[in-house]
């Protein structure tokens, strides 16, 4: 029961920001779905467990909007083709927009939550 609640919290957190996280991850270069998921999971020390049910719809949504493009390419280490996603110029701009929105949002939340911090 407790685990379920935790998971719900995480996905709830993810829903609005998943797009941003994916775009940010792709800033390093092209990656396929599995890599993106793993990267986010690793970077957050497994706090954000990647739900495949959200990841793939998100990737396709980003592609539909023209923020990423995809291409089947052979992975250098596996000798097999994977579907690699790459950031577009439009996606780069979108990332900046989302980043600044996120910053404003978290600062606003922080000011309410920890008012003392501002005084110091």
């Amino acid at each position, binding site marked *: 029961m407790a685990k379920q609640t935790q998971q719900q919290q995480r996905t709830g957190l993810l829903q609005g920001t998943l797009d941003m996280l994916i775009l940010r991850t792709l800033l390093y270069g092209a990656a396929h*779905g599995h890599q993106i998921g793993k990267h986010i999971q690793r970077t957050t020390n497994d706090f954000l467990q990647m739900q495949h*049910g959200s990841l793939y719809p998100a*990737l396709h949504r980003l592609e*539909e909007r023209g923020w990423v493009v995809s291409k089947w390419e052979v992975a250098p280490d596996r000798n097999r083709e*994977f*579907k690699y996603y790459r950031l577009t110029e439009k996606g780069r701009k979108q990332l900046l927009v989302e980043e600044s929105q996120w910053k404003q949002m978290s600062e606003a939340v922080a000011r309410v939550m920890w008012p003392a911090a501002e005084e110091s």
Partner: protein
Amino acid sequence: MRWWQIRKRDADLARELQSDLELEEEEQRERGLSAEEARYAARRAFGNTTLIREQTRATWSWSWLESLAADLKYGLRGMRRNAGSTVFAILIVGLGIGGASTVFSVVNALLLRPLPFRDPGQLVWISNGETYSTQAEQYSDLRDQNRSFSDLAGWSGAYSAGDKELTGNGEPERLTSVPVTQNFFTLLGVEPLIGRSFTKEESEGKYSAPPAMLLSYSFWRRRFASDPNVVGQKLTLNSQPVMVVGVLPASFDFASVFAPGTSIDIFIPWPLTDNTKPAGNTMQIVGRLKPGATIQSAQAEFTILAKQLELQHSERNPVFPRLVPLEKHVSGQVRPALVVLMCAVGVVMLIVCANLSHLQMARMGTRQKEMAMRAALGAGRFRLLRQVLTESVTLSCCGAALGLLLAVAGTRGLAHLHAFNLPLLESVRVDGNTLAFTLLAAVASGVLFGLAPALQVPAYKLREGLQAAGRESSGSRHGWFRDGLVVSQFALAGMLLVGAALLIQSFLRVLDVNLGFQPERAAALRIDPGFLIPTLAQQNSYVDDVLRRARSIPGIAAAGISDVLPLDGDRSWQVSAEGQVYDKNHHPEAFIRVASDGYFEALGIPLKSGREFTESDRASTEPVVMVNETFARTLWPGQDAVGKRVTQDGGRRVIGVVGDVHHGGPERMGGLEMYLPMRQTGDYAAMRLVVRTALPPEALAAGIRTSLRPIDPNLPVTEFQTLQGLVDKVVSPRRFLVMLLSGFAGFALLLASLGIYALISYSVNQRTREIGIRMALGATRGLVRRGVLTKTLRLALAGVALGTLGSFALSKWIESLLFGATHHTSRQNGFSPRSSSSHASARSTVRSSGYTLKYCFSGPTFPLRPSLKRGLA
């Protein structure tokens, strides 16, 4: 992305997921798990791949179309599996929608579609009082002096069917011509298809000898095979050459708008300057409002204008202008009947939906397991709801396709019913509006009857659904809903039945009305001589000749000549008894008929006192006249009219009183009637031979023609009318309503019975096991049957009770369409109209409730047999 790329993209997605899944598996293996463990771990990490694919696809822009296609495919497959019930459902929807679309096309043509004129909303019908037409002089002054209308135009209401004889161009033929003012077509915005409209000069000639004519499209096609060269030719009308100046377009159907049930062949100019034009109220006026003018302001102006005109010209007939939008004038009389029909169709559609809802719910019950499985595999509520609705809408659309075919057939049939004098009936057809309506009806009914079963879906709990698969677990929960459906079907069908019964009853009463003459075995033929008759003496020898020859034909019991037939013609005169003075606004007005001896016998009009015209009432003898009873009662109340004198036509002595004839149709009382002897006057427009025969009238036509040929070789062979046909035409709008409404009511009753049958057979099937146990424990077959019957009866009774209540309200509402309480029964029985008509409706209500009950008794015994056997096995 385009929708046709979806397949390719889907394969791509599958490949992407597969490759990522394999990668995960490899990584797990590299971490040291066995191959099998690695596969499971990878799958666990990934979750439900089918669901991921579905969710991903949902982000694609055309995905809804694809899932719709999938649902559609699945729905169609399901329909094929249950072919029996599918055909049944499609048939029900098809019949319902077919009826609805047909009625809608009638409503569309009569009420919704604009009249086939330019800016029809600006056109106004200007009558004199309720129904009369206006004197031509008054029309001219109104036209010149008003400021509300950009123009007024008119046509002569005094035209009579077949008044022009076309000769010298193939078979001689009688044509119906309508005299119109010069600006008539311009005002309506009707452009001739070929040629031109009348010029000013052509409209200033003589009334009796028009120099030009326009052909109607149908006449042009029939007589001249659409030959454009006929324009510019001269044809011989009534022995005078008349130039064809143009042909009117097919879209202009004068008769269907202004004179339903008749056919008009040609139009001639009406010279208003000519003093020989027919005197009296003959002008039917149409006006086109100026932009910005309203009908209220125009009405106010005309009321004042008419008062002024009456002061200036006291010698003219007074005019009481009454302005109505032309559209309302044309369709106003049929509007209530159409509204009733539309409501009936709505009720039928509701019953159809209730019925199918029922059917679908029963099917849903058996698909519980499937639905539970779908939910277990990750389908959301909304997704399942959408699927069920897609299936029901598919079903209703298939039904609508069938319905559309029926509607096309139905409208074709209706458009060719020339016997019905309903306006614009010829233009009834399936058009864009009807298609849109049909589609709307299909989707709406699909959603409506799919909604109940669809909402039932989420009620299936996973475990419950999988375990109790096949058995009805939600029966009690939805039992009341099913019962409600059956009860409401019965209530609605009951109301329709009562409505139909009431209308049938009044239709029969209309047919029962004593018209004042006997239409059976009476027939009429136009016999106007093709040559001119200069003197009264020559005319009388023609009359003598015709009557002698006609009476010598075997099978003819009586023969007479008249200028108009009953139910037709409305020439009227102000009449006065000698030595009496009447108030100008309440002057007695009588219909004028010119008749020869033998006319009353041929039509079966009874002589009440005095004597009839004889052969010896001639130009040289004393001027005489015959009147009807109302005439006698009005002019000489309480006295014997025979021997009294009227001042009209140089003064005439009343020699006989005959019974009243219902002049305006069975539903209206006739007025005053005055008969002038044909041998003493030349003032009539037509000669019609009326015969009474012992043989069927059709068999006589040839005999009459051959025996009259020697007198006039040019006698046209068309138009042999039976009087019964005339009567049928007059009652045809009512017949139309009754026909359609009883059809709907019968269909509704059938559906309601099917509904209760389905319900009972379904519930007995559900309870097979229970019934079997009961019988094993000693319950008799009779006891079980009684239980089932009690339930059936309870439902039917509840429905009939509700329907009865509803039909009391209904009978109040359709009272305006009912006939019978006003004239006869009420007068004879001393009932007030209202009480007697509600009395009638109560009787019909009870009677049709009885029918309804009888139906449901016969229904539910069938399902008992097979199910009982199975229950015991």
